[in-house]
């Protein structure tokens, strides 16, 4: 088996209106990226409470990219709320001693192929470098 | 799936390609009852036979099958496949249609599409739906995603061995089935009879040298590229070699007064670019060349698609080449004048050459017998090309898609919606008039 537990995974939470179709556009263009990046779609990532991200890291993900529509968000005001939520998540991460680079908020549109690839490639590289958060935490504890 | 048609419909749609299906769906969504008559054994038309479609590179099946399925499952649509409109006359302010249901030699209602007959049949024939590159049986289901999934038997080549009859689990095979004629009435007719591709190479231009196996039609290339194509990969027909160099000859028949096709066929530039792009994925090392007169990438996002192809390394040569022969290795020899690259006569060889052949009016463009007026180009004519292209000169008869001239899929689908809109307005006005009279 190629994929093993050792290879750190990246979770992408993509907005249904922009970032998720944006990821599909990358697929239509057959532009490859790491197969350890997993994309889940959500109406708006603003629905996740800050603790949710920490739970994901605890599950074994090395990094999370929140891909929203940015200011183009179809839900007026949701992006601003989302940005606040992510700030709160950073606060929580700090108190836990987690590398803040593990969580990124970004805006991806339906045709942002290059931006999408940049984000994913950066995060997967980081994940390869620093490994899953759970392991890092364990190492720190030891 | 409604196999048994009823006696009366609001609209009769002739042609079950993408235009006919879309018009039928839009009419049915307005609450009208629609019968679709399709000559072929499956609905889906030319589109279902394509590989992927420009400019999104969606697979054609993925876009066509939902519409095929939606029409097949729609409570207000009846699909009459393998049937032709044998006659139509005006009756009682509407139309009375005679429809010939050709003999499938398989009972449509009993066939479950299990293909046992197909597996048992000993006769092998070239499969036209695979560009003639693959074989099929004398009794067969047209293709994987055909609707309906019902077998049919080709009469000329059947040996009457009776194996199909024996293996059929439902007793659906009926070797003596006769064509049936049914009658129905409708208030409006939508002609979506589509197009045909120039069947032979334009011989006067390309000479006897044009008859060679590695010179293929654009529809054959669609099959070579299709995910469920004959070879599952792109191989050239003469010897099964992976071509190292593929060329496209644009305007092969189109924009040619000499060949009686003065018009632009409108889709060839884009499908050649698309095929070249798909080939660059299938054969990353192959040289790809498009010989063209003008690149007509005029639709939404088409120009960007063309520029992408250029950036990917597809070579575009402005020239109208002729086929002068073949090499001992089977490559096709082309000759052309190099206008941009320094001028002069040039000769080049390509392992495989695709002719982007002209789009012609369908053989039975107007099967109504009403004598719907034609345009100068031989396609159905419109009496209001600027404000309502689907309006024909016959009251109650509307047209859509390539029956009204060459057209890409996007424009066809939009125009089918327009035809439905105009037919719906016509039907609504008739109803209102009927109510007023009553």
């Amino acid at each position: 088996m190629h994929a093993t537990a050792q290879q750190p995974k990246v979770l992408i939470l993509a907005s249904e209106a922009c970032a998720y179709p944006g990821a599909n556009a990358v697929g239509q263009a057959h532009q490859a990226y790491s197969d350890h990046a997993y994309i889940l779609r959500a109406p708006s990532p603003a629905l996740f409470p800050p603790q949710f991200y920490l739970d994901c890291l605890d599950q074994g993900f090395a990094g999370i990219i929140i891909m929203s529509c940015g200011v183009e968000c179809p839900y007026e005001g949701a992006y601003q709320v989302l940005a606040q939520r992510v700030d709160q998540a950073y606060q929580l991460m700090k108190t836990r001693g987690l590398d803040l680079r593990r969580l990124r908020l970004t805006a991806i549109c339906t045709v942002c192929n290059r931006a999408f690839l940049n984000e994913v490639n950066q995060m997967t590289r980081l994940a390869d470098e620093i490994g899953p958060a759970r392991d890092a935490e364990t190492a720190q504890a030891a | 799936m409604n196999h048994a048609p009823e006696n009366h419909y609001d609209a009769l749609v002739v042609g079950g390609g993408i235009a006919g299906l879309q018009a039928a769906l839009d009419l049915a969504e307005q609450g009208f009852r629609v019968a679709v008559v399709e000559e072929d054994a499956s609905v889906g038309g030319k589109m279902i036979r394509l590989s992927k479609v420009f400019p999104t590179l969606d697979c054609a099946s993925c876009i066509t099958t939902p519409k095929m399925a939606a029409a097949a499952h729609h409570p207000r649509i009846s699909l009459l496949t393998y049937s032709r409109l044998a006659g139509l006359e005006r009756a009682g302010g509407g139309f009375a249609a005679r429809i010939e249901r050709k003999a499938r030699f398989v009972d449509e209602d009993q066939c479950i599409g299990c293909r046992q007959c197909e597996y048992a049949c000993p006769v092998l024939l070239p499969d036209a739906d695979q560009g003639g590159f693959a074989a099929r049986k004398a009794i067969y289901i047209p293709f994987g995603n055909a609707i309906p999934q019902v077998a049919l038997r080709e009469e000329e080549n059947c040996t009457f061995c009776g194996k199909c009859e024996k293996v059929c689990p439902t007793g659906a095979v009926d070797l003596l089935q006769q064509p049936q004629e049914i009658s129905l009435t409708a208030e409006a007719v939508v002609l979506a009879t589509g197009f045909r591709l120039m069947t032979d190479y334009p011989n006067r231009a390309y000479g006897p040298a044009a008859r060679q196996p590695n010179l293929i039609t654009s529809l054959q290339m669609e099959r070579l590229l299709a995910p469920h194509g004959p070879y599952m990969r792109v191989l050239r027909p003469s010897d099964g070699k992976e071509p190292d160099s593929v060329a496209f000859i644009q305007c092969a028949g189109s924009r040619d007064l000499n060949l009686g096709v003065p018009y632009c066929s409108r889709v060839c530039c884009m499908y050649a670019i698309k095929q070249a792009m798909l080939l660059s994925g299938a054969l990353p090392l192959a040289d790809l060349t498009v010989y063209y007169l003008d690149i007509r990438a005029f639709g939404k996002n088409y120009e960007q698609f063309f520029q992408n192809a250029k950036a990917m390394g597809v070579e575009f040569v402005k020239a109208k080449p002729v086929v002068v022969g073949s090499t001992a290795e089977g490559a096709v020899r082309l000759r052309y004048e190099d206008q941009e690259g320094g001028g002069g006569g040039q000769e080049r060889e390509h392992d495989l050459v695709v002719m982007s052949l002209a789009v012609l009016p369908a053989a039975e463009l107007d099967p109504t017998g009403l004598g719907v007026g034609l345009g100068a180009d031989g396609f159905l004519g419109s009496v209001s090309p600027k404000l309502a292209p689907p309006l024909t000169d016959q009251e109650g008869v509307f047209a859509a898609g390539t029956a009204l001239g060459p057209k890409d899929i996007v424009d066809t689908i939009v125009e089918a919606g327009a035809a439905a809109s105009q037919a719906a307005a016509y039907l609504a006005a008739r109803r209102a008039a009927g109510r007023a009279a009553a």
Partner: protein
Amino acid sequence: MSQDRPNNHPEPKVGVYVCHCGGNISDQVDVEQVARQAAGLPGVTAARHYSFMCSDPGQQMILEDLTSGRVDRVVVASCAPALHETTFREVLRRAGLNPYLYEHANIREQVSWVHHGPGATAKATALVAAATAKARELAPLMPIRVAATRHATVIGGGVAGLTAALDLAARGVEVALVETTPFLGGNLALLDRTFPTNEAAADLLTGLARRVLAQERISLYTCARLTGFSGYVGDFHLSLSQAPPRDDETLERLARFGEPGPECQPFRGVLPVAPPNAERRIELNTGAVVLATGFRHYQPPEGEYGYRQSSRVLTLPEFIALMAAIPAGQPLAFEGSPVASLALVHCVGSRQIPGIHEPPPGRELNQHCSRVCCTASLQAAGEARERFPETTIYELYRDIRSYGRGHEDYYLKASRSGVVFARFNPEDPPRVEADDSGDNPLKVTVKDTILAGEELELGVDLVVLAVGMEPGPVAELTQLMKLPQGADGFLQEVHPKLRPVELASGGLFLAGTCQAPMDVGEAASAAAAAAVKAAGLVTRGQVELEPFVATVDLARCDGCGDCVAACLREGALTLIETAAGQKARVEPALCLGCGVCVAACPAEAIQVAGWSLPQFRAMVQAIAQSGAEQGGQA
């Protein structure tokens, strides 16, 4: 999480169906293995794979499992959900099950098209596991039914707007036709004759305007601007602000009109009714909105091909108007002097290429082809040669795109009439310079690619720029209505083939050149297609909405009001008094489904139906564990 399930719910039976997509998926993903792995997941009672799940036999396969009772909820792993999610939901409906007991795994666009080798299979397996985990958490959802107002609003009074309004009215729909100017006719009014029929644009518009004014179901609002937009499909609320025209250009144009009526004045348009003389606010309830906001011509920046540096550089519409103003039999003249030769330049503001063309300050490049300018240029050039045979005409083009019905004839006719063509590469565009030395005031230099790139110097009296099409000025509208735009700035349909005239938000439709460049016939067809879709929606009397809105678990809600404070949509969330105390309440037709309230709730009492946090947690867990399990098995 499964412990959250009330005891009276039976254990879900999930069917997993993996699509080959005829090789699109199966060439990269071992679909058999994906299905095999899925079969071992908890709750899975059937796991199959097939070449085309979306095809009739594919759907039949699912249907049989559902009707036989083998499965009661479905996961299909195939292409992007945008393509087939509704297809498969429909299968559940046909089987008599709730269509929302369905989850889609995207293993084409996000797996087989971007990953190769065993990693692709592993990722597909994980995504199927996640979808299955979510499927187990799904609950039946009831669609929200909203009464649809039998009324539609068309924004834009050009040929597309007029056509859409007429077609809607013909279907028995009440229509509000909204136009920002006092005039009808849009850009078509600025044309002389249309190709390929040579009908006068003014005649076409007069005909349309007559029918619009005679149609009782159409209410016309000119000089009206959309100032408010709320509501939802079937029941939108529009605020319009009507005001007397004030800008000089409009007033000047108005001054030349006599009595209002349907007659179209060439190059001016139709003044259907007198403009309002006082400001007025209009509130409309409407079931659907058709956008027909049209295009505007590209305005070349100063200096592009000498534009605005020489008064002798005109745009094609200006040139057409110039010709139309010259009496029959008179020679072509400009500013009093005869025009012995002119050059017509194609692709101005169209087909711009990054790296070759410079975007004007603060603007994007127009990478698109404007579709109609080639034939329009050929028509103008052919007509000019016919009327003014003494004038030499050069057409400088990149590709001649006379694609449409009858268009190629214009190319032939222009050629035969003696128009001299030269073909340039975008890298070497023609240069326009003032020329004091020669016989003509302007010199155009062009590298002619059909002459092996030799440079030609053309002395001309006039340069005509075939300017392209850009989206109309819709910034305000796109912001107000949240309309999606493509990279080219035109409004973006859901899918060019599946839903070519619809916007992603329900009840909004596209007609004509607000979507992409089109000629008149194409715009009219697009308008008719939009009208038939809108009519289908509003004539049914009610609209079914997706049920993905916030729902409150009353048992958990303690009425703290945090969700109400967080809610972005006025009126969607309120606090009500119940027997069990203060509770949050959702107005489903207004709820956006954004989920901002979900994160705000301290008790996790509010969830977006179909997108609940427990469902997300189940998916995250499944993905997190997927590799580990497989790693263990391998």
